[in-house]
């Protein structure tokens, strides 16, 4: 297989605080292939955003202890100088955020902000850059892009702002787009429009997409592969169908069972007991063990490694594969 686009190896991001060390990301390894869509699911505090903010170089190195390697097209982003990193960020890797109103500058016109991003990376005149900006606004489905480019962010609706962000992110034709909860702040009908737009543009621009979300429904419809994260670690990774029809980690089972589903008549939800752990006092052994209904003695002391028991589907759990398959089948049969 060709070299992966992004190869993250044993990444840790720890923040020293007065209360103790916050282990936001704790030994995470994964790869992203060109043009694929990776879904990253997890609850708040699972480390899903922090790991990709680190990829973007947006975590202040003075405030965090970062170790590991982040190889993007073969080059380690963590050892690069700020100048080198700046050439990649925005140009090769772009990111869009949950709240487009805070991500856009309120005192500059939308078109001018896109022009600024283009000119930071390309030696072209303002007029040429503006032509690209207007064309991008058109491609993301903003009507009257000429006029819209001259407006300010507050004149845009929530969905339109997120479209403008996507236009800016894709204006330099990046190889990878990181979307951090891109639709969480939007209504469902607008969410559907934006997710469809990302799907379409991904094809047009040949971009790999990372979709960070807490919504298992979004992942089911818009990704190829999924990483499930819990307490700073990837606990399961596999193809989309692996995760939905062959899940191998108790946390994934818990998530799948606890959500209210439109497509099923559920008498009662089956929640995961307890709440996500503090990242300062992460439970010893498997960090999910205090909440796991299948906990064994070994889980309390030994950290399970992420092992590909049926490659490339991998999970970090001490239960034997056969037992896990048996449990999952009974969960599926019950539904």
């Amino acid at each position, binding site marked *: 297989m060709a070299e992966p686009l992004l190869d993250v*190896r044993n990444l840790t991001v720890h923040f020293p605080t007065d209360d103790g060390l916050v282990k936001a990301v704790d030994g995470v390894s994964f790869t992203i292939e060109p043009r694929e869509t990776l879904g990253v699911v997890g609850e708040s505090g699972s480390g899903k955003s922090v790991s990709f903010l680190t990829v973007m170089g947006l975590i202040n190195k003075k405030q965090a202890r970062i170790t590991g390697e982040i190889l993007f097209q073969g080059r380690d982003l963590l050892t690069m100088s700020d100048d080198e990193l700046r050439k990649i960020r925005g140009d090769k890797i772009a990111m869009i955020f949950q709240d487009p109103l805070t991500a856009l500058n309120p005192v500059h016109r939308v078109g001018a902000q896109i022009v600024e991003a283009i000119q930071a990376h390309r030696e072209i005149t303002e007029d040429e850059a503006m032509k690209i900006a207007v064309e991008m606004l058109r491609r993301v489905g903003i009507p009257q892009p000429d006029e819209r480019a001259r407006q300010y962010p507050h004149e845009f609706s929530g969905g339109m702002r997120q479209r403008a962000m996507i236009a800016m992110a894709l204006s330099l034709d990046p190889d990878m787009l990181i979307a951090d909860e891109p639709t969480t702040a939007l209504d469902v*009908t607008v969410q*559907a429009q934006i997710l469809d737009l990302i799907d379409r543009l991904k094809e047009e621009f040949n971009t790999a997409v990372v979709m960070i979300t*807490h919504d298992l429904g979004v992942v089911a419809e818009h990704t190829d592969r999924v990483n499930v994260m819990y307490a700073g670690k990837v606990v399961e990774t596999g193809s989309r169908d692996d995760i939905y029809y062959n899940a191998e980690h108790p946390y994934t089972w818990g998530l799948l069972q606890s959500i*209210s589903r439109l497509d099923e008549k559920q008498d009662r939800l089956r929640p995961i007991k307890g709440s996500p752990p503090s990242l300062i006092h992460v439970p010893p052994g498997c960090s999910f063990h205090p909440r796991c209904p299948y906990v064994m003695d070994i889980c309390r002391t030994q950290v399970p490694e992420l092992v590909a028991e049926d490659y490339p589907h991998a999970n970090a759990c001490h239960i034997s594969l056969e037992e896990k398959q048996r449990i999952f089948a009974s969960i599926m049969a019950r539904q």
Partner: protein
Amino acid sequence: MTMTMGQPAPDVTASRTPLVKLTGVKKHFPITRGIIFQKRIGQVHAVDGVDLEVYPGETVGLVGETGCGKSTTARLITKLMDVTEGTVEFDGHDITRMSRKEMQPVRRDMQMVFQDPYASLNPRKPVGTIIAEPMAIHGTVPKEKRRREVQDLMQRVGLNPEHYNRYPHEFSGGQRQRVGVARALALRPRLIVADEPVSALDVSVQAQVLNLLEDLQDEFNLTYIFIAHDLSVVKHMSDRVAVMYLGRVVEVAPGEVLYKNAKHPYTGALLSAVPIPDPKLAQSRKRIVLEGDVPSPINPPSGCRFHPRCPNAQLPKCSTDDPELTPHRPGQLAACHFPLPDRAVITEEAEVKAEETRKQVVRRVRSTGEPKPGATRTRRTPRKP
């Protein structure tokens, strides 16, 4: 408006009187200009003609997107706001024009649970005091018995009664929401209006709070009005679901009926936009894609408010005639001139397909997944550098 909305679901006996009855309820917020002489230059039609009946013991869900008026409706029911037009009845009494003093005994019977458990609890008071406050205000429980009563409530909502003296910041989001629920229960109300009670919580914690609300409904014989933007959650919780769009109720039906046979194209669009955590079903459902955003409630569109975004709109009828809620199935009403056919979004084929996939998984795993004696794990790291 004279139509009555909300034939109760078949399992709710129609003979009973509704606990809550809204008739032609409107709430308009003025838009003013100027500081001293505030000139009225327009109004936001936040709620614009809602009729709704809620029967004792049932859960009615209100669902809709931002700005559809669902939260305003909640505040009108509990009289945290006064209606502009129409009447609100509680247990057969018209509370629309009641004074604060007259309202106080009524308020004992209706309580609210709010969305943000961080903002709705006073950070300077221990949770015990927060939960006891309604008892103090209404004088329902004498002072010396309050502590016991509060601890009993804390136990019932799944909090440790020993944490009586702790402050809200010492609790997690889910626990705080339990405090909010305990406070709402303190007066033993008959109606609880829950406005987005789980949308600020993590997925794994949401289910805990939803289950708690269901248990308490049985235990305390509660009637719920459950408001959320998440159609899956609303459907799970409610006997009947009312879908709101731009200040109006456009469709009411039992959750299952709504899911299978939504009649209003807006409901259909919601159904086809809600992410379904089942890849096969999600791919095979029909899509009703809406163009554009919700129009401004300052100048709502003429005729059917949904017509500018509606894929089925037929002009000029839809832009001139305001459709009324008309019955379709038992318990189902929809306000549309050209309703959707049955099974417009989730087709039977899609359901069968999804079910088949699930059965296959179970069969496949059952046939291969028998534990083999001495089976060991293969230790292979996913992608060795």
